[in-house]
């Protein structure tokens, strides 16, 4: 066999390897989604969304689970967005660029990689026990806020760093204070990037189960939470609970709940992608 021929075979071999690698993940995901849709789609109706959990699979619904997820989403956003964006603004606009800043920066990046169950343990010790919040929505939201804070901080910093310095100088040059410059110029220009990061972080938070199990979220909650101090469940907990039961009917319920959770996550990611595209188009300095 000639050298040229061997090279060509290696070349096309690698091409097919690449295609296989690309489709491996996609095909598995597609099979999973098809399977779930086939099992659960028929189970989704108005009653499924508005019923309380029940021992009888046919009467059980996800009202407490999705309202719990909505509560958690809302409270986590309320806590994590201001903290994360403020920290990002401080580090990028006010903080000096010295060795301490670099250490802080590396540590924040590391925090983003800490396993979520450790955040659960931290939340259990600090929020549930020391601060006496109990296994409440608030404790859950605080824990998840800690979990996604590093992601929001990093996204905020990157978005702010992308704002050209000439814009800040123009503002300072007219007598604006730092805060005015940040509020009127930097944040509007960075808002698309910040929003994208925030949405991706939140969509991660609503899929988290481990830390919420640790802080004591319940799988069976027979009422809809009315205040942040109420006990709660969330969609992933409900899914876990149903899937681990032996009866086929509950597995169908689980599949239906998975469809709802996936739909929420895909929607949020879709919004994030849309905002990112719009932001990129708007900025052309």
């Amino acid at each position, binding site marked *: 066999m000639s050298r040229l021929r061997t090279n060509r075979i290696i070349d096309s071999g690698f091409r097919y390897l690449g295609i296989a690698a690309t489709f491996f993940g996609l095909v598995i995901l597609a099979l999973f989604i098809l399977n779930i849709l086939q099992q659960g789609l028929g189970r989704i109706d108005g009653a499924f969304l508005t019923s309380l959990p029940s021992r009888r699979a046919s009467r059980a619904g996800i009202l407490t689970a999705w309202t719990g997820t909505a509560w958690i989403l809302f409270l986590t956003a309320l806590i994590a967005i201001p903290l994360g964006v403020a920290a990002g603004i401080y580090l990028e606009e006010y903080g*000096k*660029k*010295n060795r301490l800043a670099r250490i802080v920066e590396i540590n924040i990046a590391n925090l983003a990689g800490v396993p979520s169950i450790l955040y659960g343990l931290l939340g259990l010790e600090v929020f549930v026990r020391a601060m006496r919040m109990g296994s409440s929505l608030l404790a859950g939201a605080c824990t998840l806020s800690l979990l996604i804070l590093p992601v929001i901080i990093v996204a905020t910093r990157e978005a702010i760093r992308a704002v*050209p310095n*000439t*814009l800040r*100088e*123009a*503002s*300072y*040059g*007219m*007598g*604006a*204070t730092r805060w*005015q410059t940040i509020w*009127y*110029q930097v944040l*509007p*220009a960075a808002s698309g990037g910040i929003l994208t990061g925030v949405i991706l972080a939140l969509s991660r938070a609503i899929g988290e189960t481990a830390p919420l199990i640790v802080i004591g979220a319940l799988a069976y909650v027979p009422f809809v939470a009315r205040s942040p101090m109420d006990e709660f469940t969330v969609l992933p907990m409900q899914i876990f609970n149903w899937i681990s039961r032996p009866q086929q009917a509950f597995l169908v319920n689980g599949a239906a709940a998975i469809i709802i959770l996936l739909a929420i996550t895909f929607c949020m990611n879709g919004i994030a992608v849309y905002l990112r595209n719009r932001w990129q188009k*708007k*900025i*052309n*300095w």
Partner: protein
Amino acid sequence: MKLIVAEDVNVYYGDNHVLRDISLSISEHTVTALIGPSGCGKTTFLRTLNRMNDYIDSFRVEGKIKIDGKDIYGNKVKVEELRQKVGMVFQKPNPFPKSIFDNVAYGLKIQGTKDKKSIGERVEKSLKQAALWNEVKDILHKPALSLSGGQQQRLCIARTLAVKPSIVLMDEPASALDPISTAKIEELILELKENYTIVIVTHNMQQAARVSDRTAFFYMGELVEYSKTSDMFTNPKNKATENYITGRFG
């Protein structure tokens, strides 16, 4: 009375000594050109006059700079007030990504002016002063970034004037523009001289000769020569100055 007086100004970026013992004074309603090869410190000196270097962590200044008799690096000085009085136009046109109107109104907005009528009047007056009004009066609410480069730079000048400064610093304001836009900016500088004191950094010798009353030649962080522009360009006292303005180096 001299409006700007610098006495023995030394500037450091960390260990880097970028300005050495600069002393010079500038009279009201004049145009002063700062010239010299890249890295000579002229832009640093310009930015020292409205404290735009403050945000550079390693920046340090010694000596005195007085504007209207007050030391601008003194303890009681509010840097925001200083910059309202000493406006700045940058090398590359840098309008805000907002409408033309909002760009000019920004300075009033940050000062807390709410009265729409007086904002509108000031915007119109500033745009007229910057010789841009006729070109933009019907498109005030269009994005500033849709203007041409030369128009954008005149918008930046209008924006600066709207804050009512007494001094306008210009950092190579025409270096990114075509010759026609450059000529408009130069014409504008000569008009603005009536009411403002202008300090301009330029790499263009002809421009310095055309617009300025006095010229300061900086070299390696030192002020080599400072005299009337007509004297400097016809009869430079220093050999380095002569070499630079005749294009033998720089």
